[in-house]
């Protein structure tokens, strides 16, 4: 595959990201063609090598790891040994971007913080993604994605009206911070290309989340009302809900914003006379009688499939779509047409499907060109070719257990 036409062709990233936040940022950079070198240690494995979806429990069989770390190179090194950190500083000197999401202070302890790395590479770009920030009274707080969503106020709005808070139950913070950090790295790269100046960027995940609910922060100041659990309610749209359809736990989302869309919905659901009631004719009436409206629409959707309803309403320009699970998305003709999932062979797990890039660029798209690295798979390339160490020197470092030697895992029999 010709990577020279990818947007980040020739850019090297030293990736200290682990779990999901850091890796999801560098995934974007790697998809754009940057050479991302993932730094790992066998002593403290990336927890994403052992998620609940990893049925086989081998470090090389985790599907989430394969998805988040495709396109990256992998090295294994012992960062608790001073010589290991020295090697990483030398590598940083040949790198454009360094990214990390460790606990505050960890990079400094290893002599790999911005001030240290700037000495070996003056125009280095460093992106840190701490949960609560690298400074401030609560910076040193252990945090994972769910707790950060709780602290940001987001979780306080997730749940059925008048009931208990439920939370998102998905690692939203990780992926949100990931995109934000990739964006920041690219902006810094543009600045460096123009001015020759590198910089240190802090993306506190908590702040990146509060930015996502900014309008609620402002609304509260204007109205004095603290937003609570809103269920499926929207301030300007009715109907706005997920409705039970024919089948087992099948739902369809329907939302109406304009009177024209409403007229079209009534036309599609023509065999439901209650929708023609005057009180539903204008948005104010629909908002005021939303519970009743939901019952009427549910009575109509319950005997039809979510797909059929979607087709009928979209034909008339009304926003509707089934509540998909990831398997539904995988099998859907539209997403198949757009190659949202693509096959990728992994040396241990064999043929897998993986989610494609999150954009389609007409000229320099990037691509999925390499499966996720095995533990230490690219030690020899990185330390030999990138850093220029001799084979003897690499062997010495392996014997000293500074570089953790690559061990060929058992490959899956195919067929």
């Amino acid at each position, binding site marked *: 595959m010709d990577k020279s036409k990818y947007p*980040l062709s020739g850019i090297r990233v030293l990736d200290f990201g682990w779990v999901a936040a850091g890796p999801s940022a560098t995934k974007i950079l790697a998809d754009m063609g940057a050479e991302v070198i993932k730094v790992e240690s066998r002593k403290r494995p990336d927890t994403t090598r052992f998620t*609940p*979806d990893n049925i086989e429990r081998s470090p090389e069989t985790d599907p989430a790891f394969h*998805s*988040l770390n495709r396109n990256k190179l992998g090295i294994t090194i012992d960062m608790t040994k001073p010589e290991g950190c020295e090697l990483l500083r030398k590598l940083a000197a040949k790198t454009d971007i360094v990214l990390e999401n460790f606990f505050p202070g960890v990079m400094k302890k290893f002599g790999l913080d911005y001030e240290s790395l700037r000495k070996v590479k003056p125009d280095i770009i460093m992106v840190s993604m701490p949960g*609560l920030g690298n400074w*401030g009274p*609560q*910076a040193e707080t252990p945090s994972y994605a*769910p*707790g950060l*969503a*709780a602290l*940001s106020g987001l979780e*306080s709005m*997730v749940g*059925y009206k008048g009931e208990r808070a439920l939370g998102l*139950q998905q690692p*939203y913070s990780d*992926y*949100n911070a990931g995109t934000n950090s990739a964006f*920041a790295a690219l902006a810094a790269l*543009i600045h460096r290309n123009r*001015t020759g100046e590198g*910089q240190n960027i802090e993306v506190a995940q908590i*702040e990146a989340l*509060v930015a996502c*609910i*900014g309008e*609620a*922060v*402002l609304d509260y100041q*204007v109205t004095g*009302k603290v937003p609570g659990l809103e269920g*499926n309610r*929207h301030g300007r749209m009715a109907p706005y*809900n*997920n409705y039970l359809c024919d089948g087992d*736990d099948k*739902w369809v*989302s329907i*939302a109406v914003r304009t009177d024209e869309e409403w007229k079209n919905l009534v036309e599609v659901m023509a065999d439901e006379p209650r929708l023609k009631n005057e009180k539903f004719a204008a948005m104010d009436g629909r908002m005021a009688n939303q519970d009743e409206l939901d019952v009427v629409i549910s009575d109509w959707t319950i005997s039809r499939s979510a797909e059929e309803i979607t087709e009928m309403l*979209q034909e008339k*320009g*009304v*926003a509707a779509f*089934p*509540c998909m*699970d*990831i*398997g539904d998305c995988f099998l859907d003709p539209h997403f198949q*047409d757009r190659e949202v999932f693509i096959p990728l062979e992994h040396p241990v797990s064999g043929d897998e*499907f*993986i*989610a494609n890039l999150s*954009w389609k*660029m*007409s*000229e*320099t798209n990037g691509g999925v060109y390499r499966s996720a690295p095995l533990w230490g798979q690219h030690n020899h390339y990185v330390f030999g070719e990138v850093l220029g160490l001799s084979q003897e020197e690499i062997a010495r470092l392996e014997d000293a257990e500074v570089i953790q030697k690559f061990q060929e895992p058992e490959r899956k029999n195919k067929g």
Partner: protein
Amino acid sequence: MTGTKRHPQPLDHLTVIEIGNNISTAYGAKMLADQGAEVIKVEDPLTAEMDRTERILPGDEKTGCLFAYINCNKLGVRLNLETEKGQKVLADLVRKADILVEGNRPSRAKELGLDYETLSKINPRLLVASITPFGQTGPYCEYNAYAITVSAAGASSVCIGEPGRTPLPLPLSQVHFQSAAMAATALLGGILAREFTGRGQHIDISEAEVWITHFTGHAVIAYVFHNRRRIRSGHKTQALFPNGIFHCKDGYISLLAMRGEQWKAYLNILGEGKMPDWYANDERFTRTSFRELNVKYGDELEVLMEKWLMTKTKNEIFELGRINHVALAPVRDIREVLEDPHLNDRKYFVDVDDPQFGRLKYPQSALRFSQTPSAVYRPAPTLGEHNEEIFCKRLGYTKEYVNELAECGVI
């Protein structure tokens, strides 16, 4: 007070045209504006009124602040693209721009002269990002969608809520903001590519696909090979480690123990310095591996845990978690977030004077650059506020011509 624009900023040299008032296009352009790009927001005089008053949170009759929030740092003009003269103005804007962001259905974009083929003829160096629910191609490319629809399509809603009950969408505008952030990121990739190609390109962003590829798609292999489906699981995840939102004295506390030693540390908090008796004396718990606890005894453990949690406030528990290095976090409401001492110490909220709402504390860009710090230096534009500045000063139109355009309803 509203701050001043500081220089240099990474995107100082870029001009962005933002068409319309979609939440995703507006937020994407805001991300570029926050890093210094000059964003010219082009609003259709016919639909601007409705878009500007978008209110996401129910229960209040006042105009919502969404527009004010996602349009600060921008310039604003009015322009009716459905007129021949309007199209000429658009072409003049496009000639001087680096990026155009739009969010129309593909057929509608073509009608408005916003398709890539037309735009690239006017300016081959222009990058065009189209952010639509389902992308530029495929059977659903003309489908209409709002936040709840995209959340459904992106395999997200199906995982939020109680088992068997109505799926819930992600709150507020999350799906739009995420598509926006991905579009802004891809655009910067396009700007870097332009440094060596010399040309612009078309960037197709499907909101549903941003969700599937970046947020939920990691589960596809588990689905394909092991038929493992993610479903709603209420206030606890279906994952194997103890993870969820639990009651405490004055609200809720979020707990996640990723590793066995974290679970032990948490139990020591519950037992105030030692493993609680109800746990230590129950062989079912002590003999079960950490990874199976939640599946086997999750409900029972929750009842036992909450007995202690209900005696403590969320801030007391948060502090105990911090000291003992356990991820325990209070579920905060918006008021608590705005008053949070940590965020305020970091000066995350900044005062902005909005012409409609007065002085409010805005969350600023979360990206803190050491050499090129960003600032909120301008509130969202009023409708057509910068007509004269853009059309006369930037495009060089005479005052007479601008008046003529205004009189025939083009601007």
